[in-house]
């Protein structure tokens, strides 16, 4: 697919974010087109997770403009003090079109796996429970978790919980999926199953924005890699360009710190 012709799913313009006096993001612009998989990388403290959390307004920027599917979810000028022009009910409506997967899974522990997946569509979108259940069971099946529908999250492994979290987000039929370091809290042997689910999702054409430390995975899954440093986008391009031929000094330093990862890239490179 020609990425230039695909419609824009996500648009960020001039995003500024501060926590108290601390400036986290200083004017980030980012456009994501339908079907693109964009991976945000950067050192800790570079603002990549903060930026991801701005997309569905878990973090409220001080100023800037965010639109999902051309519908603004946030709009505030530099003098508006972070007061958005978009009404809260509208924000919730647009949020429901994005799915988010968290580092700590954040499943609802008082509900069964099936109830976790059905919660959003039934409560937020007010869909018919019986129809949602059919869809939820299909998603569980797709994630290889069909046998666990009536279990509680605490009875599952981290990798299984994270796959439930992906299913829970997909049940909302999102146009955009956000992943916040989805494998960082997992035991190493459980990382693969979650990455595999994400690769399948990417191949199915889902638009994704992913924050990850797994550069090898980023290389395999990303159409585009965005490198953040000091709260701004420093480099934005294809994985080959950014990870194999970094030209920005900061990016070079960052990639070189992942020597082992660079070694991990080699087999992928040879395969391509």
């Amino acid at each position, binding site marked *: 697919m020609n990425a230039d012709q695909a419609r824009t799913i996500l648009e960020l313009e001039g995003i500024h974010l501060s926590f108290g006096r601390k400036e986290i993001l200083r004017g980030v612009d980012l456009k994501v087109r339908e079907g693109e998989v964009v991976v945000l990388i950067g050192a800790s403290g570079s603002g990549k997770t903060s930026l991801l959390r701005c997309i569905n307004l*878990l973090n409220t920027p001080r100023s800037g403009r965010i639109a999902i599917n051309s519908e603004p979810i946030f709009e505030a000028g530099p003098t508006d003090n972070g007061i958005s022009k978009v009404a809260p009910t509208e924000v919730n409506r647009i*949020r429901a079109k*994005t*799915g*988010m997967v968290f580092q700590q899974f954040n499943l609802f*522990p*008082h509900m069964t796996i099936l109830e976790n997946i059905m919660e*959003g569509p039934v*409560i937020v979108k007010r869909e018919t429970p019986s129809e949602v259940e059919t869809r939820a069971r299909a998603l569980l099946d797709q994630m290889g978790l069909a046998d666990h529908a009536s279990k509680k999250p605490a009875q599952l492994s981290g990798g299984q919980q994270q796959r439930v979290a992906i299913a829970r987000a997909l049940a909302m039929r999102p146009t955009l999926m*956000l992943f916040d370091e989805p494998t960082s809290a997992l035991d190493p042997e459980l990382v693969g199953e979650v990455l595999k689910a994400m690769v399948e999702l990417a191949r199915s054409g889902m638009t994704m924005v992913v924050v990850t430390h797994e550069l090898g995975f980023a290389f395999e899954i990303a159409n585009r890699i965005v490198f953040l440093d000091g709260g701004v986008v420093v480099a934005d391009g294809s994985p080959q360009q950014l990870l194999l031929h970094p030209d920005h000094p900061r990016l070079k330093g960052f990639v070189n710190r992942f020597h082992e990862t660079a070694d991990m890239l080699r087999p992928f490179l040879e395969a391509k």
Partner: protein
Amino acid sequence: MDMSVVYNNAPLLWYGVLYTLYYTLITVTGGLVLGLVVGLIQFSRYKALVFLGWLFVEFFRNIPLLVILLWTYYALPIFLNINIDKGIAGFLALTCYGAAFYAEILRAGIQSIDVGQSDAAVALGMSYGQRMRRIILPQAFRRMIPPLVGQSIMQMKNTSLLSTITVPDLLYQAGYISSFTYKPMEVYTAVGILFLIMLVPLTVLSRMLERRQSAVK
């Protein structure tokens, strides 16, 4: 010990038990409802409401109940220049006092829920009300059951202070009986036993709930 005074005055004591249970019921209910409001407004985005909730809790938590009770019965009517029935005064004082503690239990319970839960609910597009009703409060309430039962037990014991404003609760009846039988030992022993009979089942229930909860998580 001559327990016959207890049997002979059983109707009076029974009357006192009913009063004690009645005031426990209405002040626990009132306290929970008011405490829920006071506890929840402390999570409001309006600073004034948050302050109001804080003020209520600190005010009623830091004045001895006996002082609140006597003040409500003897001083408040003069301030407002109205008549306040002793039952109403007792209800108001105990309800507000209990509400302050219930509000604190609620606030601590809600705050103990991981922010990730709220994040996940927000990400699904849930409104504040949906988040509270579906995600936060069900989890918080489970954790709050043992302290809520504990506070309610305190509340029942605290109703004995109502006797100081002549509400005819169990303790008041005991004082009355011993004033004409001159048998305080027997009468007050009976009062202690009656409180034990009423409260021990509750504490056992609380323990059971606690154990069941730790089994769930």
